[in-house]
Structures are given as C-alpha cells and as structure tokens.
C-alpha cells in the first residue's frame, strides 16, 4: 500500500531511452544495478525505511511482478520546508509572518521500463528549481550503474502530434480527451497557448482551432505541451480512474506530469499509450 501510494502519480516523469541498448543491456539488469549502487549484499540491505535528514538515501530496489526485466529503485529523504503562516503577529508594534519549519518526506523513483525506457520520477513541487535539483541528484546517484551519456531524452513530439491528429477517431474518443495545448513557432520563436474550459476538454473540438493547430504542426513547428485526460471505462480495469496528464515540460521533451496519485498500472498505461502514439507515422 505504501509503495503504491508513494511511487505512482502526483509526479513529474522524465523519460530517457538508451542510445544503443545492446551495449548497455547487461548493465541494466537488477543484479548489476544493485551491485553497483548498493554492493554485493544489496538484497539484504533493501528495503529500508530510513530517511536521512537533508539528503536522499536508497530505500528500495526490487523487480516488478510479471515484468522480470523491469525494476524500481527508490530514494527517501527528509527535508525541512518553510511554511509561512497566514496570520500576522505583532512584535514591538511591527507585523511579522511567523514561519514554521516542517519536516517533509520526499520520494524519488527510478524505473527501468524494459525494453527501452528509463523513467526518473520526481514528486510535484511548487519550485521548479527543486525538481531540477532532484533530477540532477538522480543522475549523480545512478552514475555507478548507469552512464548518463548512454541515454537520450525520449522525444514525445511525435506522440503529441499524433494525439492531436487522431483525437476524433472513434477509438481515440473512448481513450482520451485533450484540453490545453502550447505550440512553438520555430521561425519566429513565438509561443501560442490554448487553454480550454476547465472541465470541458474540447479545446480542439472547434474546427477553426484544430485547423490552426494542425497547420502549425504541418509547417514543422512543435507542440511542446499537451494536456490529456485518459479516460476510465467500466469494462476495463486500467486506468483505474480518469488520469490528468500534461505531456511536455520546460525544454524537456520527454517529460510528463501526472496530477494526482494513481496505481502503478495507471502510470504504465500512460507510458504504453505514449509508446503507441510515438510509433505511428
């Protein structure tokens, strides 16, 4: 239950692909990763509930049921976070906002999603800087097992493009709905953001809007962000509920955000859907 709650959803996921999987496949087995990061007796040392203060430590490394080539590596850390109270206090005639320091537990997850995806999962945070710091921490922490230079961003540009193009197909309408879109005009550097009604998820339903977006994409420009709602259905267990995602991130082509906690199978479902739409030409 704890694993499910802290490993899946309410997080940014950064996707990477091996440049040449054949050259590093052996280094990406759980045994190889465990020995490199934790030591020869790694199976005796995880899971561990210990969370250091002001730093991260490995808390778990394990295989996934039914997926013998996949693994999850987890880090725990406790950090003091400042919360300003909303009520002012008056000290010697001057108003102050008291600040409470609250310890918060943070979880970082690395998931090897065979055969070709490395996922860095970082919990949502109000500061982008902290997310990027944790992103860098993960690559540093993985260095003994995984060489960053052997990976490249998974470019989700094609997936976003196809999600837009195919959104009116019968099968698509049962699977997902789109809302907000951001486009970048490569020739002028202009950015165009389309934000739909909060609950309607039909920004591109208006033919004029869809024509504009598809014309921009056909001209070779990019959709950098796309918010998609993955629909639940009574006759299928996954996704377990509607999943709100943003596909795209700040200059990070292989980034998604999943808003809200969900099941492990839900996150894998979104990843599989993105794999599917990336393959379509």
């Amino acid at each position, binding site marked *: 239950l704890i694993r499910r709650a802290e490993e899946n959803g309410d997080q940014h996921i950064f996707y990477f692909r091996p440049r040449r999987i054949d050259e590093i496949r052996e280094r990406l087995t759980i045994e190889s990763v465990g020995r490199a990061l934790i030591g020869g007796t790694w199976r005796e040392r995880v899971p561990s509930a210990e969370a250091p203060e002001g730093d991260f430590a490995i808390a778990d490394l394990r295989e996934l049921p039914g997926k013998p080539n996949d693994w999850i590596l987890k880090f725990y850390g406790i950090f003091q976070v400042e919360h300003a109270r909303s009520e002012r206090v008056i000290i010697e005639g001057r108003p102050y906002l008291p600040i409470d320091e609250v310890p918060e537990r943070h979880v970082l997850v690395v998931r090897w999603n065979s055969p070709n995806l490395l996922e860095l999962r970082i919990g949502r945070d109000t500061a982008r800087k902290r997310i990027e710091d944790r992103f860098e921490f993960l690559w540093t922490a993985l260095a003994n097992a995984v060489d960053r230079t052997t990976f490249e961003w998974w470019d989700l540009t094609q997936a976003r493009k196809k999600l837009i193009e195919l959104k009116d197909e019968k099968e698509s309408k049962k699977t997902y709905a789109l809302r907000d879109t951001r486009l970048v005009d490569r020739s002028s550097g202009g950015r165009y*953001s389309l934000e739909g009604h909060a*609950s309607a998820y039909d920004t591109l339903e208006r033919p004029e809007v869809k024509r504009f977006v598809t014309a921009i994409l056909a001209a070779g420009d990019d959709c950098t962000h796309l918010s998609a709602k993955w629909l639940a259905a009574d006759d299928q267990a996954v996704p377990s509920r509607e999943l709100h995602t943003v596909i795209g*991130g700040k200059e990070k082509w292989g980034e998604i955000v999943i808003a809200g906690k969900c099941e492990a199978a839900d996150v894998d479902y979104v990843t599989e859907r993105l794999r599917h739409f990336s393959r379509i030409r």
Partner: protein
Amino acid sequence: MLPKDFDTLAESAKAHGLGDAVRSLGQFVRAHPKWDQIDTRDLQQLAIDHYTLTRAVVFLVDAGVFRQLYAVTTPSGSLADGLFETPRDIPRKLPDRFHAFYFETSDQDIVPVLVAGRK
C-alpha cells in the same frame, strides 16, 4: 455533468419573480453540455440584471441544483485545476495549466464556480 431539467424549477421560481432568470440559466447550461462546472463570470453574458442573476443562482443553490465552490485564475486568466469549499482552503501556490510553474494564489482572482448539487 450539470443538471438539465430547469423548466420545473423555473415554474416554482416564478413565485419569487425568478422564473425567467432560472429558465435563462437552464438554457445556458444546456448550451454547454460538456461542462461540469460553471465559471460564474460567464453568466454575465446573460441578459439578466446582476441582482436578479444573483438571486436566481442562490435559489438554485438552495434548491440543491448547484453547489458553489471556489476556483482561482491562473496568470493567463484561465481557471487553475482544483475547486475549493471556501476561499480559506485555497493553497498559497497552485500550478499553471501546463505545470510549468506555480503562482501565488493571493495575486490572482478567486472565482465562485457552480457544480452539480445534490439533486
């Protein structure tokens, strides 16, 4: 989804002088079948004076047709994801629509929104 049967309610609202206003609200809801929340700022486009509009909304909230919650505008003007029971429940920061950054909610507008009520 928001409720659709406003005609019966319009009849009972007549006694309060709100029959036409409730009917107009019903037409507005039916014109947006995919919405599951109404940004009350959008109701200003209805040809109803503000006093009557407010009374009609309160009538429908009291009747359990709508429930009033609160949302926050993002810096670009759309509504951020997340609805709150009271303004005090709104967190200090919320993400923009693209989760590119968080903004201070105290710098933005708080907007009453209507969602489906008990009935």
